[in-house]
């Protein structure tokens, strides 16, 4: 029984990891794009970015997920998610969009947080814009971004469980299945509790990683 459960949980965890990884890969660059949009001098673009961020951050991820999964099927001829891996794709789109908006605010804070004097000091020393960005401000931005980013990423690990609402079979789904009935078992509660250990272990690892990165940059204060 134990082996069966662990195998099922491993499978669920793999799916959780997949959603986690794809969300990060998509949301980090998209977040940067939205961040630049929300700092753009061109007013319509700035407003568009900020309204998007406001809507996405102002509503529950679960609702966004439901809308993204169900609404296209209701208004289009054909449900675009009715394909193999459609549930995963829908979840990935919702998570990427949601996290990109959170990340964009973190990026913006990091970029705007570097004092303008740093840029000006580079300018009066005759440095070019790109030299100033890469040699002066970038590392200071990263130092500002890492702590809030690590919080957000650890939240993402746990948020992946929300994808269960559209029957995406992630870790909690796998654990819960043993309570409802699956693999010939029903009424097993401990597998569900056991999923907690997976989250704890993974987040523990991430915490160590981010702690290490922060320590690497602790030699300077800005």
């Amino acid at each position, binding site marked *: 029984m134990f082996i069966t459960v662990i195998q099922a949980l491993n499978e669920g965890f793999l799916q959780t990891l997949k959603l986690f990884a794809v969300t990060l890969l998509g949301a980090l660059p998209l977040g940067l794009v939205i961040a630049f949009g929300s700092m753009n001098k061109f007013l319509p673009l700035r407003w568009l970015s900020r309204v998007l961020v406001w809507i996405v951050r102002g509503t529950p991820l679960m609702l966004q997920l439901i809308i993204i999964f169900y609404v296209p099927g209701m208004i289009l001829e054909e449900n675009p998610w009715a394909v193999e891996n459609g549930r995963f794709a829908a979840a990935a789109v919702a998570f990427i969009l949601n996290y990109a908006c959170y990340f964009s605010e973190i990026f913006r804070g990091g970029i705007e947080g570097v004092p303008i004097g*740093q840029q000006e*000091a580079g300018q*009066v*020393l*005759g*440095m070019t814009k790109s030299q100033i960005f890469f040699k002066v401000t970038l590392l200071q931005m990263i130092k500002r971004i890492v702590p809030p980013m690590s919080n957000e990423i650890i939240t993402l690990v746990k948020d992946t469980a929300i994808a269960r609402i559209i029957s995406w079979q992630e870790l909690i789904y796998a654990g819960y299945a043993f309570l409802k009935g699956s693999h010939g078992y029903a009424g097993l509660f401990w597998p569900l509790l056991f999923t907690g250990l997976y989250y704890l272990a993974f987040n523990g690892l991430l915490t160590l990683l981010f702690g290490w990165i922060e320590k690497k940059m602790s030699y300077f204060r800005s």
Partner: protein
Amino acid sequence: MEVLRVENIQKSFGKTEVLKGIDFSLNEGEVLSVIGSSGSGKTTLLRCLNFLETPQKGRILVGGKVLFDAEDKAKQSDAAIRLNRLHFGLVFQQFNLFPQYTVKKNVTLAESLFAKEKIKKEGNYKGYTHLREAYAAIDEKADKLLEEVGLLAKSESYPCELSGGQQQRVAIARALAMEPQILCFDEPTSALDPELTGEVLRVIRELKEKGRTMIIVTHEIEFARDVSDTIMFMDGGVVAEMGAPSQVIENPQNERTRAFLSRFNER
């Protein structure tokens, strides 16, 4: 010999006229101190000289060469401005050292990047054809500059490990590294605890003795009187009075200068 000539510099932010036509000139090796009450445009003037602000009117000439002419937009390309800047150095009130680099790297960074670019593009920087030789020379110069400001022993420290006075002295060494013809200071001691201003003022005095051309915005009237060849009193975006310290400070002609100085004398 005249090194700097500023003609009719006018600068507004939106509707606010901050500089309303500034004219002056400065000879090589001379020190000009700029005094005046808060908001009179002193910082803005220095920022115009360092091309951090673009005046709407006027010209800036260094060594007879026109560096800035508000009428001539061709001179205002990023590349042109960047090279023009090198005639000036600026020491900020808040130091603005690069926190992630050691003291030494703060001093060498800009010139190293410049040398690297020159050697890549033109095969030559100050006669050095190899990057390694250029870096060695830049390094050696940094040591000399840090020695000058009394911080050679702190070469490998990071800015956050230094006192404000030490940070400002590093900032002075960093500005000197690019060998500016005219070094500008914007209230270099205003962000310092009173007991730390002395060490910074001493360094500036030594620079004066070595014949550096400097423009110093300051509220340290005593210091300005001692170190300057000329004092400029700014008021409401114009030069209200300008002349030798003995004239402007001891015997001001302008009503506003007198009012401004009397506030200092009361202290």
